[in-house]
């Protein structure tokens, strides 16, 4: 069956649990993404990212030797990264606030909490397709803008408090 919009996309699933990898692959296949590559940890994933050039990554958080946070940071920040802009969905059972913030600060695009449902997975993919966030570069961060909501009357370019303070200091 033709996948239509999704059939030319390639996905990389990074997950140490084989059952979860298979489940994610099956869901992506159902959506029409037939080129799905699998890795059991961040190190192997980085190699596949270079060799297979996927368009989207679904990654677990807890893995060894390289976990999902370090993998995301490597993808965004490393000079050897083949695609620092690739959308990364972190699929995790670790829903504690500090872990979600760590994922966000590593440059993860979306977080999908386990248990996985088709609706939740599709919602996260929809966010990436329909509302891609601009990328932000800061001294210690490169990745999607971590502010989820746009300010209606924002005229840019500064938005951080210290941007204004620095700007005033220059004047």
């Amino acid at each position, binding site marked *: 069956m033709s996948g239509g919009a999704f059939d030319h996309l390639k996905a990389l699933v990074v997950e140490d649990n084989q*059952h979860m990898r298979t489940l994610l692959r099956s869901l992506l296949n159902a959506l029409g993404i037939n080129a799905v590559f699998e890795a059991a940890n961040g190190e192997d994933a980085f190699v596949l990212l270079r060799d297979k050039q996927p368009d989207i990554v679904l990654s677990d958080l807890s893995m060894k030797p390289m976990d999902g946070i370090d993998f995301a940071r490597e993808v965004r920040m490393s000079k050897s990264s083949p695609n620092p802009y690739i959308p990364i969905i972190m699929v995790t059972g*670790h829903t504690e606030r500090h872990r979600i913030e760590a994922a966000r600060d590593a440059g993860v695009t979306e977080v999908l909490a386990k248990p996985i449902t088709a609706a939740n997975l599709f919602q996260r993919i929809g966010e990436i397709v329909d509302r891609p966030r601009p990328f*932000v*570069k800061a001294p210690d961060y490169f990745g999607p803008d971590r502010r989820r909501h746009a300010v209606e009357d924002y005229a840019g*370019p*500064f938005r951080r408090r210290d941007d204004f303070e620095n700007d005033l200091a220059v004047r």
Partner: protein
Amino acid sequence: MGKFADDGRHAAEANYRPLLSEAGRKQAMAKLKSGDMLAKASRVIAMRTAELRGAVLALVDQLEEAMRAQDWPTVFAATHEIRGFAETAGLDATGRIANGLCHYLDSIDQLGLGPDGAIVSLHVDAVIRSARTEDDAARHGDAVAKQLAALVARKLADVKEAARS
């Protein structure tokens, strides 16, 4: 990296490429929102329920063994895996109880303390029982999960209070 327009502050989208063309985006969104697509994907999950249940039961064996050895890192790792899987495998009560234990172990770790063996033991027993005896889980799982959640909340409040005084 040099892949973005470096204005020294906020990065631009120089080399950022949307995942799909405008026409592709519309087609993709229609597909993602289609009831048929969602039903198809839900069937994919349902077809794997038995396999996932087997995986949860294997993890429960690991958890039981780790608990016997008081091997806390493995207890946490196995519980975390069970939490991620159980509800997808149709073991809702098991997932909720495992979630409560993960919350407790993570919170206690954040406070730099070791876990209370009794709290862990109560949860692990409940996880094992609810996963292995589905009838019991269906009848009592919710009540057990709620009571254990209340126990964890009280215990964490006590620990935080003790840390403050």
